[in-house]
């Protein structure tokens, strides 16, 4: 095992897959000479040269489309969005072309590409730079949506993503880039559609992905002290989605809290909740409680920002609500 940062895990994944397959290349704003705005691509230009590590103009729609075309014509692009907020100018390429070309062409053209970059709020970045947009992408058939929360998953899921032959929405967490964790040495692949039972417990199931997983875990100690043993499950991929692992857990706990950093209304947790209600209707002893961002654009002032985001206190309150309902 190596103890490395989340960003380094991503870097290893890209480097290993580029080593393995000449069709893989990395493209985006500042990925080459600048080593990446968040240093995820550090050293890759030096190692693989400008043919395969490519700085782009600030033209997300353009280079996302270039990714689609390169993928259709035999390459395996890894396209970096400096942050997922900027994918809004490129979403037409993602939804109209990447997600639909295999289908519209009756199977003629695969679009094996990974679009990756950080999502979520990272502290005082304001309304336009703090969004968690996974619900938008999760809705679209033809895409796969992956959100790792640890260095090991970051590496293993990104390697799986690059080898996959479909368009992958790979949403990292800006706040987690410096987070350290153990990552297996050597080849390490994590499959899509396999949730991670982060902690086993028996009193309540907490479902949380990406950064929210850590918010959920931050409440564990106090819950245990209060006599509540939570089971924490990180779905890791939102499309496909591993309902079986959650079902097994709910059969044991009968209570569910969902933690998510996106907005509550129409958020990822709405679908997760609906799936749980529908598949575990008779198992649930109380309504599911969702801890999500408040329904406002992200304010700049820290005090307000903290109030918007899920935090330990809100997770504690939610668990207590479902347990003593």
């Amino acid at each position, binding site marked *: 095992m190596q103890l490395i940062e989340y960003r380094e895990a991503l870097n290893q994944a890209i480097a290993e897959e580029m080593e393995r397959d000449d069709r893989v290349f990395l493209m985006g704003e500042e990925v080459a000479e600048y080593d990446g705005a968040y240093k995820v691509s550090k050293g890759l230009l030096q190692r693989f040269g400008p043919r395969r590590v490519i700085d782009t103009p600030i033209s997300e729609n353009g280079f996302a489309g270039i990714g689609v075309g390169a993928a259709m014509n035999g390459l395996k692009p890894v396209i970096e969005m400096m942050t997922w907020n900027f994918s809004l100018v490129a979403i037409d390429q993602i939804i109209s072309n990447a997600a639909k070309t295999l289908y519209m062409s009756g199977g003629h053209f695969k679009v094996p590409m990974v679009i990756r970059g950080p999502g979520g709020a990272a502290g005082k970045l304001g309304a336009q730079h703090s969004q968690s947009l996974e619900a938008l992408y999760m809705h679209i058939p033809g895409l796969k949506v992956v959100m790792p929360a640890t260095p090991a998953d970051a590496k293993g899921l990104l390697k799986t993503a690059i080898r996959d032959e479909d368009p992958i929405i790979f949403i990292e967490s800006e706040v987690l880039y410096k987070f350290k964790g153990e990552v297996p040495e050597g080849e390490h692949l994590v499959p899509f559609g396999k949730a991670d039972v982060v902690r086993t417990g028996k009193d309540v199931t907490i479902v949380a992905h990406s950064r929210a997983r850590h918010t959920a875990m931050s409440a564990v100690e106090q819950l245990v002290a209060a006599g509540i043993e939570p089971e924490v499950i990180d779905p890791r991929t939102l499309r*496909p989605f591993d309902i079986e692992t959650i079902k097994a857990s709910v059969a044991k706990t009968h209570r569910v809290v969902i933690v998510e950093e996106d907005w509550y209304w129409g958020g990822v947790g709405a679908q997760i909740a609906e799936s749980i209600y529908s598949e575990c209707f008779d198992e649930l002893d109380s309504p599911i409680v969702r801890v999500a961002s408040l329904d406002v654009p992200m304010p700049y002032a820290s005090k307000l920002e903290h109030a918007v985001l899920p935090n330990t206190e809100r997770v504690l309150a939610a668990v207590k609500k479902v347990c003593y309902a």
Partner: protein
Amino acid sequence: MKSDANTISKKMARADENGVAHASKRVTSTEKMLELYSMMLRIRRFEEAALVQYQKQAIGGFCHLYIGQEAVCVGALSCLEKGDKVLTAYRDHGHALAMGLTADSLMAELFGKATGCSKGKGGSMHFFDKEKGMMGGNGIVGSHVPVATGSAFAQKYRNEKKCTLVFFGDGAAQQGAVHEAMNIAGLWRLPVIFIIENNRYGMGTSVERSSAIIELHQRAASYNMAGVTCNGMDVLDVVEKTSAAVSMAKSLNAPTLLEAKTYRYRGHSMSDPEKYRTREEIEGEKKNDPILMLKADLMERGYDAAKLQQIDDDAKAEAAKSVEFSHASPEPELHELETDVYANPWDKSLLPRVEF
């Protein structure tokens, strides 16, 4: 190179005493001319047959006919070789035929049949064939232009000495995606040829009402690439300008913006009252019908009228056969719904599931 390409004269066809224009005189083999003639006619007859089938409701949805513009795709695509790629918008019947897709597979696609080039899942706007280099058929105006640029990127990445041609309309030229793609192509020197099929209208909006400048090829100067114009009603002019661009692309990775001045004789799609132009304008343009122009040229060269008629008869027969083929073809099976959503689909135990 830029200034050179820019100064290529915009020689337009001239009308003869009968009001039928001639294709410009160029040294082209009769054989090549016949090929071009045949291809244009095959497209024309195919679409005329499609129109009839649309009226009989064997075809539905949008159906954008290319009638009048045939010289553009036929001329341009005649310059390609295996490994070159093509993308265009929703008005894609001609390009697909010219790329070698069969009339049967295209008509069947229009019918939504399993034997269609896209298995009946794509429809009129989404003709694809990987083997033949036909990368679609795209319904979002301008959206395929970056995709084409990406195809050229892959060709250069592999050092193939191949190129990608992308066709789009005068209306599409106002989309941001086109600007971004052309800038990147000019900056990175990609082997892509941007062909604006300027048929003077985007739906009911004339170029004068959609673009701040009307000579669209002049935008090339913003992207460090050659800006060239050609007479899109004169297939030989299209051939000449495209083949120059293709060789620039292949030898120097130099992109070109080629504007073909053309005209669409039919409405935008099937339900277009066409109040934005006069009958006289359309009739006037019909004098430049690319097929009639080339025919007149061939006749002048002494080519046998009966043999030309044979070509037309063959084109009609092909179209008629494609209609029969399509009628006789099966609809897609219901399970086809589920295939081609993913190249690597997931286990049925996972969500979301397609249940029907």
